[in-house]
């Protein structure tokens, strides 16, 4: 009870004799002191509050915060982008890297040609169906922690070419995107703004809960396949279920396929996802109306 701020014992003068003296205690002080002690026995909320204030817990949090600060400062000040240009936006990306806009001021000037050495993938341009397997593969090859910046209208949602038969409407259908930069193409200033936004995002991360220090390796994005059109492997069970509906697959074949590579590659849990079931229903309706 050394924490109690109220003085309990009267100070003994330096010249006092050494024999034991019974101290006199003010009854009011004794009363407050007794009730203070009793709170530790009865009042749980008070105890919890005292524990949360206790030195050990706050020190650990502050330690993590300090480590986070240094760790995040290091990461956000040396983001190495992948040297990877897709289309028109890549030209503005190069301009950003050149002397006038000088992306190196923000520590992101070292463009690495290899995904193994890169932290940031700037998807700078139209994502086409023919290219998207390679982009996903590059993304899978990048080590964690990794970030994706979708530069421009095309990478974000297909842009002016959205309707095209060879255009994917946005890279976020396959890769998790951290920052979207609008524009067609975004000016170098806009790209720098996106980079600063990414740095703020990194500042907000903590090593306590980032995904890449987990026990298991992170799942890879399944690389889409170029068939008669782009085939997203995550949709394969639904595609096969539809083929079975049409009679192109027997139930046994379907079961074998779902159990095989197709089922394993897909992220869906048994049967058809709700969205796909809805689409399937509309599609059946359409087939029926066509006779």
């Amino acid at each position: 009870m050394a924490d109690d701020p109220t003085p309990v014992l009267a100070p003994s003068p330096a010249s006092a004799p050494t024999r034991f003296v019974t101290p006199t205690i003010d009854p009011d002080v004794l009363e407050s002191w007794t009730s203070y002690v009793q709170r530790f026995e009865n009042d749980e909320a008070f105890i919890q509050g005292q524990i949360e204030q206790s030195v050990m817990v706050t020190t650990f949090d502050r330690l993590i915060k300090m480590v986070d600060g240094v760790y995040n400062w290091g990461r956000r000040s040396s983001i190495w982008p992948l040297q990877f240009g897709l289309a028109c936006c890549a030209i503005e990306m190069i301009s950003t890297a050149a002397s006038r806009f000088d992306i190196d001021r923000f520590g992101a000037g070292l463009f690495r040609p290899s995904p193994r050495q890169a932290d940031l993938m700037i998807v700078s341009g139209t994502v086409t169906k023919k290219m998207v397997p390679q982009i996903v593969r590059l993304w899978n090859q990048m080590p964690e922690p990794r970030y994706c910046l979708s530069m421009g209208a095309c990478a974000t949602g297909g842009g002016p070419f959205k309707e095209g038969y060879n255009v994917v409407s946005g890279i976020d259908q396959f890769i998790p995107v951290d920052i979207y930069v609008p524009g067609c193409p975004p000016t170098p200033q806009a790209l720098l703004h996106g980079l600063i936004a990414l740095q703020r995002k990194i500042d907000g991360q903590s090593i306590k809960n980032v995904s890449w220090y987990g026990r298991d390796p992170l799942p890879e994005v399944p690389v889409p396949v170029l068939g008669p059109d782009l085939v997203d492997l995550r949709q394969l069970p639904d595609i096969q279920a539809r083929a079975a509906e049409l009679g192109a697959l027997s139930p046994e074949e379907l079961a074998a396929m779902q159990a095989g590579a197709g089922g394993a590659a897909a992220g869906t849990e048994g049967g058809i996802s709700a969205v796909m079931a809805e689409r399937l229903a509309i599609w059946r309706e359409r087939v029926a109306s066509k006779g």
Partner: protein
Amino acid sequence: MTKQTDVVAAPAPADVVAAVHKQLGERVTVDDGGALVVGPSNLIDVVRALRDDHGLDYLANLTAVDWLDRFEVVYHLCSSAGGAPIVLKTTTDRANPRVPSLFGIYPGADFQEREVYDMFGIRFAGHPNLKRILMWEGFAGWPLRKDWREAYFEQEHKPLTSRWPDGQFFFGEDKLTDWGSNTKLPPAYTGAEIGRPKPQEGQYVVDIDALRRGTSFGSDRLVVNMGPQHPSTHGVFQMRLVLDGETVVDLEPVMGYMHRNHEKIGERNLWLGNMPFTDRLDYIAQLGSEWGYALCVERMMGLEVPERAEYIRVIMAELNRIQSHFWSIGFLLNDLGAFFTPSLYAIEEREIVLDLFEMATGSRLMCNYMRFGGVAYDLPDAFMPLVNVLVNERMERAIDEIDAYLTNNEIVMERMKGVGVLTPELAIAYSTSGPVLRGSGVAYDVRRADPYGIYDRFDWNVVTANEGDVYARYAVRIGEMRESLKILRQALPQMPAGEILGGKKAWQVRVPAGEHYARVENPRGELGYYCVSDGKANPYRYHVRSPCFVNLTSLAEMCKGYKVADVVAILGSIDIVLGEVDR
């Protein structure tokens, strides 16, 4: 080493058509538009006669039109001495489309025929390597056929029908595409082939035994894939190299990684709606691309362009040419291994040019500035003083600087001289254009050969170099920047006041039925637009003859026998822009 020559004028197309008609008689007919029409069975004979007897040694453009009852394959032939192109057409039925290949007469037809096959499914008999070029093998459908529709967009034309047909708002993608994305799988697709080895069709077939035979040190030949993610391929471009040690035995360019359906979208857009898309073709030389399209439609509509607008166009296009050549020289040095420092110096002036573009048009890159009959906005007051300083003082110094550091640099000469040689005959046969053709000593520049705009008013020369190697193409670019500067110095003081847009501003133009092939000299070569109108609000056929795409036909020829490191330099000297290669 560069020489400056003038081009002699060639005979008018009408005279040639008359002479051909006289020589070949029954086998060719002349249609209303002055085009020669020939049946597929006579095509080879007629084309050979045109090339050998009438001097039409240059295949400018090759494309097709789907008329729903037949396919029409259209060839634009011209002479490397200059002159307007002659149109040759042949038709084939839609059920079993088949036309003889011109590969044996014009090797430059190689990629263009493959593109027509890819987009229309027309088979070219006798083509040695007929497979898809922009899409992948196995893609279902022939996209540019008129009865083929994409997943997101099933209407034939824009403007769209109302998005509120029942007082209800919807987006295109919610309208049901089967799998919630922009894909269109066949109904009973099972995905059964996934995970199995791919069929060999469309792949580079490697015969190991054949590879082992005839190698110099008893070593195996290797097939190396360069790209599409590679720092020196200028974008998403792939090359399959067959190597004997370090030496290139064979090379196959693989493209289409940035094919974004320019032509299909262009055929649905309104005429004016295509203008911003042309910017995104060659995104380093945007204004030249716009000019080509504006020129094509203006000629179809018979529009006059006001004097001031013509001058503005010339100034913009030549500024564009200079900044584009700066860019390509900087990145050629990048490819040679001088990473980024020469580029930084080279693109210093480019930023100033882009600032001028932003001032005049509102955007650094995607200007959307030209209109049918003129330009969109007049130049702002602050433009002229700045451009005068740039043209009269800064630009000259910048070119001199690049010239002084690079042209006689020992390492640069060692890496570029004698590498990637293309003879003039082959350069013409492969239909190359721009600095690649002029670097081989052929003085062919569309501004002089088939004049457009007001280039005939200025005193300038066509720059050529005779060696045909990487260094010659570099030297041509340096020379062309100086010639562009010369044109700018004449054009700026002469600039008249007055209107900038003939006629009245209109959202929608009416283009009379007909067809036209217009071409301009873009920094990378002859950029052509072939438009067919049926009198409706949209182009019936909209084709872009891309200089980079056609120039790549000669890449394999240039690279054979050189080392892998030279391939990078040769590709850099062609200076491809993937937006234009893949469209």
